[in-house]
């Protein structure tokens, strides 16, 4: 992981902790976080229990051309699903290429980049 001196360079999603609650996307002052999600029924509930649904994250993307590294998303996440890491974000030839897809459920979507 990172040392404290160089930890303010990239924000990583800890996918299992994310509940798609949208709080980070709403708190972001520069509107750089995009989230798509859908709901699925929870299976394996005891007989007679009320049906429940849970949110499933389909897409989580940060546009590094907009992000100003304020860290409000990291601070606000109630599930600690975002964290600072020391690696730098990838440079790119155009502003569109700076959109990093951290989760992409669609078939054919590029693999999540492992940077650490």
């Amino acid at each position, binding site marked *: 992981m990172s040392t404290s001196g160089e930890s303010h360079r990239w924000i990583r999603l800890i996918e299992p902790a994310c*509940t*798609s*609650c*949208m709080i980070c*996307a*709403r*708190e*972001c002052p520069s*509107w*750089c*976080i*995009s*989230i*798509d*999600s*859908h*709901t699925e029924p929870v299976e394996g509930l005891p007989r007679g229990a009320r049906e429940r*649904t849970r*949110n499933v994250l*389909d*897409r989580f993307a940060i546009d590094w051309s907009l992000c100003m590294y304020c860290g409000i998303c990291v601070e606000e996440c109630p599930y600690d699903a975002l964290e600072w890491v020391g690696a730098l974000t990838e440079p790119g030839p155009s502003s569109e290429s700076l959109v990093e897809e951290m989760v992409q459920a669609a078939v054919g979507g590029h693999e999540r980049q492992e940077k650490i």
Partner: protein
Amino acid sequence: MTEVLPEDWLAAVEALKRDGFDYFDWLGCVDEIGRRECFRIVLVVRNLGGGAEPRMLSCSLPRDHPRIASVAAVFAGAAWHEREVSELFGVDFLGGERRRLLLSPDFEGTPLRKDEVLAARTGMDWPGAKEPGESDAVPGRRRMVPPGVPEPAVWGDRDSSQPAAEPAEVAESAVGGRVRRRRT
């Protein structure tokens, strides 16, 4: 905090300086829209040697024509604060420095007034408009609006037979959050 009238502002600051509060700390402004139709100017001075509590002066200026005497002749350091308040709130400091401090010369608007709309954002898709479990923002539900962007019924998509929204209504609507149900 001592409240003074706009016409007594300069004299009150001079009197504090004579009384030994000769260290200027800061000057700021609060847009009190929604409570009162005014801007509140606040000035804090300290007496560094005497151990006295800092003194705070406040003055209310009408929102439609905010003007007050500059105190830059008393405390030269206040000029920066006055220039900042002047460009961010549109308050006129009579006899003060007129140059801009932070904003570019061609910038129009008064960004810290609470009824200032982030107009460029009203036409953009806000990522936070979706609800958890959604991939597309569904219209017709109690939607979220981002801070700085009033709900369309107040600003932008207002019923053209209605007069333009009052500044207080724009300010109340632009704090972000859930679009409130409107009585019809």
